[in-house]
Structures are given as C-alpha cells and as structure tokens.
C-alpha cells in the first residue's frame, strides 16, 4: 500500500487549471522528485496534499485513509510534514521555539518530552548556534534550514520539500543534501520539488514532471531526462 496516493486531483483558479487530474503513488520509504517549469503547479500540488488548498475533484489518500477533506492541522498530525518555498518562520519566536511548537503540536507531546528531539534536529540541521535567537533575525539560507528543521520536528512520515536547495552555494547545497539523505535513510518518505537537479538526483529514485498542472511523465531520473517532451520543456535550462 502506498503511503501517499493522489487520484485524479484537480484544482482551478478561475479559468486557470493549476492541477489537471494529477495522479501518483508514493511508496513507503520512497523519495520522489518533482520538476517542471515555473508556474507548472508544483507548489499548488503540495498545498493540495497538505490541505492548505482544497481540491475541486479527485482524492488524496494518506496511509490508507482518505484525507481529501481533512484540514491541514489534522494532516500534519497524521504525518505529513512540509516546508514552504518562501520560508514562513514564527519570526518573534526563537529558532528553538519554532521547533518546539512543531514538535509539541505536530506530534501531540508535552514540551518537556520533545526538548531532546528538537535539540537533536538543531544539531543535525546546523542551527544549534542560533537556537536562542529570534527566527526573524535569520538570513535566507538559515530560514530554509529552519523550514527543514521545523518540518522534521513534526516527526513526519512523509516530508514535502519545496525548493529547499534554491539559492544555496555548492557547499551549502551538499551539506543540505547530506542531511536530507540521512532523513531518508531513517525511513522517512520524501517528495521534493526542486530546480537544482543534481541535488535532487542525489536523493530521489523517481522523477515526476509537471507542466500546466498535468503530469507528463514519471519514472527513473535518467529515463525522464532523456525523454523528448521533457527536453522540450527544459529547452534552454541547463540539465
């Protein structure tokens, strides 16, 4: 049984179809990459999975349960963790407190019981030295790390990463990929939207290509990148 399954999920904003009968399965422990040009509906797809946007048609199943009409809060509790493409930290809370909220509420535990786990995630994501500073004082790169750290703090079964490697230098990107690989190796399933293909290919086993809200290909990364349709979409984009 797949951990996450989308069946013909559709969503329109007025005349604009941002998700057009999107279907895919994610197996337990799998890492799936999602690529596609800007405006292809990638982030919208995440919002449909997390419940931040309600689907017009189709169904989202998570761990065998239909969650199509479930609010975001309950989907988080069920085990869907996400990062935002534009980081959304709790600015006046400290970095540590950002994780504390996510850990205490995302996994329904008392604060005292999640302190160690939050500290561990801060170490793993390299944010420990900023632990007691307000999240609003962080730069973009650290905000992206905080997005990852906060999503991990909810103890997700499926982790949705939205362009988490964008704008990073080569070294920073490598460190981030190593962290995500470690998370994946511990058994967390991952769906990762990314333009930085070499980072993506270091983690994911399959790629899904999205264009104008439609899935135009799913498969092995090499296979996908060799297909004519994908090359046409990515013409002019370095592969």
């Amino acid at each position, binding site marked *: 049984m797949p951990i996450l399954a989308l069946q013909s999920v559709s969503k329109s904003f007025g005349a604009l179809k941002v998700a057009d009968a999107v279907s895919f399965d994610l197996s337990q422990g799998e890492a799936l990459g999602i690529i596609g040009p800007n405006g292809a509906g990638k982030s919208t797809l995440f919002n449909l999975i*997390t419940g*931040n946007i309600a689907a017009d048609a189709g169904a989202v199943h998570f761990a065998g349960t239909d969650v199509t009409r479930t*609010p*975001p*809060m309950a989907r*988080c*509790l069920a085990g869907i963790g*996400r990062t*935002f493409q534009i980081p*959304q*930290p*709790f*600015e*006046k*809370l*400290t970095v*540590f*407190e950002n994780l*504390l*909220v*996510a850990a*205490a*509420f*995302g*996994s*329904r535990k*008392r*604060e*005292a019981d999640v*302190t*160690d786990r*939050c*500290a561990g995630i*801060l*170490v793993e994501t390299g944010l*420990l*030295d*900023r*632990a*007691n*500073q*307000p999240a609003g*004082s962080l730069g973009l790169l650290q905000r992206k790390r905080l997005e990852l750290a*906060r*999503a991990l*703090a*909810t103890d997700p079964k499926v982790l949705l990463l939205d362009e988490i490697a964008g704008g990073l230098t080569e070294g920073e990107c490598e460190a981030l990929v190593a962290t995500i690989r470690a998370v994946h190796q511990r058994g967390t399933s991952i769906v990762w939207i990314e333009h930085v293909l070499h980072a993506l290919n270091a983690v994911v086993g399959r790629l899904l290509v999205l264009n104008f809200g439609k899935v135009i290909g799913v498969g092995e990364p090499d296979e996908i990148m060799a297909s004519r349709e994908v090359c046409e979409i990515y013409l002019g984009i370095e592969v």
Partner: protein
Amino acid sequence: MDASHTPWRVETRTNASRAFAMAAAIVVVLGLVAPLFISRGLLRDLFFILTMLTLAQSWNLLAGYAGLVSVGQQAFVGFGAYAMFACVILLGLDPLVSILIAGIAAALLAIPTGFFAFRLQGAYFAIGTWVIAEVVRLLLAQWKALGGGTGTSLPSGTTRDMFGVKAVGDLFGMRAAQAADVVCYWLALALAVATIGFVYRLLRSRQGLALAAVRDNQEAARSVGVDARRVKTYVYLATAFITGLTGALIYVQKARISPDAAFSVIDWTAYVIFIVVIGGIGTIEGPIVGVIVFLLLQNMLADYGSWYLLVLGLIGIAIMLFAPRGLWGLFTERTGIQFFPVRRALRGGPTRIATKGAPHG
C-alpha cells in the same frame, strides 16, 4: 559525544525576573495592607486603577497575543454589570456571588458573539465586535425591571450587607460603607493579580506557545499541527469571563448603572486600548506601565475638561508612530530586561549557545 556534553534543558526564568518576583510579592503585600493607612479617596483611585489594569491585561491577551483586535469589550463589561444587578435586584443574591455569576454570564454571551465575530477578519472583526456591543446595549436598555434606558441603582444597603463587610468593619473598627470599599478594593487587587498570573501561566504553557505561533504566522502554525481557531476561541472566552467579572465588580462599587455608562466604548475600551498601546502591546509589563502613565495623565489633566481626551489621543498617536512597541518596548529593547519572561531558552549540550536575543514582541 563531546566530553563537556550536558543534558539539554529549557530555561525561562532570568535574574531580572527572580528579582522582580520578590519585588512584586512585596508590592502585593503592601497593597493588601494599604486600606489601613490610606484615605478612602485614594482607595477608590486604587480600585479604579486595578480594575483598569485587569481590563487592560485581558484586552492585551486578546489583541496582543491572539491578534483579535476587539473594540467591543464594553459588551462584556456592561453585560457582566447588568447580570450582577439582575442577580442582586431580581434574585436577591449576595453581590459577591452575583459577580461570579456575572463572569460566567459574560463567558456564555461570548459563545454566540464569537460565533458571529470569528467569521470576520482584521478590521471587520474590530467593527463587528463594536456592533455586537451596541446590540447588547440596546437589548439591555429594553429591560424595564432594571430601569430600561435610564438605568437603576442597587438597593441601599446592598454593599453594606455584602459578604465579608461586617467582619472587616468589626476587625478594623470601620463603618460599613468604608468596610465595603475595602472589600471591593481587595477583590480588585485579587482579580488583577489573578489575571496577571493567569496570563503569565497561559503564555508559559503549551497553549501559549501555540498562541505565539498563530500570532506570528497562522498559515505556518496550521501546518505544524496547531489548531489556530481553538486557541483563539479559548482566549476570547477567557477574556470575556475576566472582563465580565471586572465589569460586575466595578458596578458593585458604583452601585448605579445605566446602559450608556455600562456599555461606554470610551470608558471600557478606548482607555483600555490607550493603556495597552502606550505601555506596550504584546507584553505583560506593558499594561502595568500603561496604567501608571494613564493615572498620572488623568491627575495632571483633570482640570482641563475635554482637552484631556485630546491630549490622550495625541500621546497615543505619538507613541504608535515613534515607539510602536510602547514605553515598555523602548525600555526592554535597550536593556533586554523582562519581568515576565516567556522565552524558552535552550541550554546544555556540547557547545556554548549565545544567550542574548531580543525580547518577545
């Protein structure tokens, strides 16, 4: 693991907060014994200040922490006051019991008003709460048994026969009217201390963390499993309860009620907002500073009639423009001192962690 590794722990208290806790305990004890040493006029001033402080703390929790900027809290002041009058006049209950019932009545009123107001966002919420307060005022003005639009008074002797008044009078050799003032003052002191204690406990609890997250970013809070609506509803009901209690207590002391006075947006909301804004919204210290400034201004400008309101307004605008975090915000930005720290600092582990940081806003 590093040899210098210590277990992780979370610290909230600071040296300043420990010192302040001591000082606050002394102030509260002084406040308790004050009626033995000060005049009745001053006691009534202190009573007024304590009730305003309670209203300010409760509005601050609502607007500063839950982001629910209500300009209709007079609905609960007035409704609590009327509920108390009804209990005393129509049911013949003791004023003390009536105050408690009034608090519960105000919280019950908050269920239907919240149902409507929570459908509105931001400025619409503010206007909506005001409209609701006006509706409640107009409804209660129809209540002929409580004097309709002109209002009514508590039966003479009500406060003198109030629970505890005789004991206080006998103990200190006071006349009944004076003893009643003392009992009201103690109730106001207890209510103010309990409210501050409640707000502080709430902010340091798990729910307080959720509240801060919702305040900073509601969308993200929902995505990490926080039930934003539930937290806000809880705060809305709790502040209605506190505001209702305070309204009832104020009107036990006043002993005369009318719809226009009990539902006055100036007295019970505009002044309260002024106190919170000049003191510093989103901090517990802010309303305390604000109420002291308010008292000083009121005394200084008492002889200038309507100029008083004009000056209050100008000061409010100036503070909003030049010190949006209020007087306490200015102080704490420079010194980093917090008397009611809510920040959870991570300590321990293999490395030293920087401890400095800006206070909660």
